[in-house]
């Protein structure tokens, strides 16, 4: 049986790890390679690096970062942020990333998911969705792109189902409403998506307490939990998270 996964997420801006609340008010959280290595040593199952600058100028920097991480970290890691072509994916995978995450580019050109899956296998294609709760339609969420700045009108669950058919191997599902609040994941969202697709769902946004991780897995049906604030600012270690989940009967790699 596969274990549930603990995945620290490192948002990288101008070569530093940063973390905000609801996608704004960024705080510095350290050097990405050092932090990645620390989490790997502590027993993280995977890492996610998101380039939140994602300009043309930062493209070279992120490839160099991936190379440095790959020299120091011996667990799988995903890289995302501004990826829009199969050639870019090829470069990042060759530099040592295990998977890439696609967000805005997949909405603009859904065929990119298919091209990437056919060339590299769907196990390395992660679809990232930034979801915002609809005020007018209860129990619905809207896909938001460009780092959460642009609503698309797409329904999150429908988009997730379509993306799986197109070639996504995994869904990184971030609740923009919960992000950085430490008030818990949006498990209604997690459950709606994980019930609708067969590929793994990574719950993201809102982790603050150990119980939140448990709830995302049990109530939200998530295969993995992603967190940033609670690890970067050392509220809990990875080991504490894993021991807690294992003590509550969740299969973990301890």
């Amino acid at each position, binding site marked *: *049986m596969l274990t549930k*996964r603990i995945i620290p997420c490192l948002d990288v801006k101008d070569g530093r790890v940063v973390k905000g609340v609801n996608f704004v008010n960024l705080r510095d959280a350290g050097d990405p390679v050092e932090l990645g290595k620390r989490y790997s040593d502590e027993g993280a*199952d995977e890492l996610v690096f998101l380039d939140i600058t994602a300009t043309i100028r930062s493209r070279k920097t992120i490839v160099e970062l991936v190379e440095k991480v790959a*020299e120091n970290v*011996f667990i799988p890691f995903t890289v995302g942020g501004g990826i829009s072509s199969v050639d870019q994916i090829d470069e990042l*995978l*060759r530099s040592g990333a295990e998977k890439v995450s696609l967000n805005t580019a997949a909405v603009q050109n859904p065929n990119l998911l298919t091209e990437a899956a056919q060339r590299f296998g769907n*196990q390395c294609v992660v679809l990232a969705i930034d979801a915002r709760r609809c005020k007018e339609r209860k129990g619905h969420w809207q896909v938001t792109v460009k780092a959460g700045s642009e609503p698309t009108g797409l329904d999150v669950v429908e988009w997730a189902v379509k993306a799986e058919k197109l070639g996504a191997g995994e869904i990184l599902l971030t609740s923009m409403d919960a992000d950085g609040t430490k008030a818990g994941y949006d498990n209604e969202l997690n459950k709606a998506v994980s019930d609708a697709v067969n590929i793994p769902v990574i719950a993201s946004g809102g982790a603050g307490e150990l119980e939140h991780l448990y709830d995302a897995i049990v109530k939200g049906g998530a295969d993995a939990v992603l967190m940033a604030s609670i690890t970067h600012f050392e509220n809990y270690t990875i080991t504490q998270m894993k021991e807690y989940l294992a003590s509550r009967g969740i299969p973990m*790699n301890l």
Partner: protein
Amino acid sequence: MLVVIDYNVGNVKSVCNAFRHIGCEAKLSCSPEDIKNAAGLVLPGVAAFGYAISALGPLAGLIKKLALAGKPLLGICVGYQMLFDQSVEYGSHKGLGLISGNVVPIPDTQVIPHMGWNLVKFPRDMDLFADLPKEKHFYFAHSFYADVADPGAKIAYTDYGFQLPASVQKDTIYGTQFHPEKSGNAGLKVLENFSKICKRKAT
């Protein structure tokens, strides 16, 4: 020195990085001279089987000859699958035939790909797992698996709704379906054990 065989498939660099990290000299090369002189060979692989075996080209025959003559060989993921007789991934492709068995799809009753950390239980006498506890988690990412039919092979299994062979050893031919270079400290230990096997063999 170990040689990691470079045949233009994805992410061979991670394997070299991992060996470097444990202080083991591993050269990425496709030169027959380097391959002949190596203390041991590593055949990595992130690609479809058919693509990988054709990318290997004439090196396939050389690797097979050296492995049969006793040079330690470690196949990883698709590199491991290539040790077997044949695969049915996108058509039928012949493998190196070093270990009897065929590479077949994971039953579709399971989620495919098998991706993530799964618990591998090792028989006590498998050299790759020396000095490890009797079971450990390793990182897997694959959709096909080797149905091992070789009575001379030792097998470590993982449970994925059925007993899935996770690692095989036959004489000094070794293979792992999982990625030791991405499996944290336990994976690094497996690579270190392989490098020790090669050193012992070379002296």
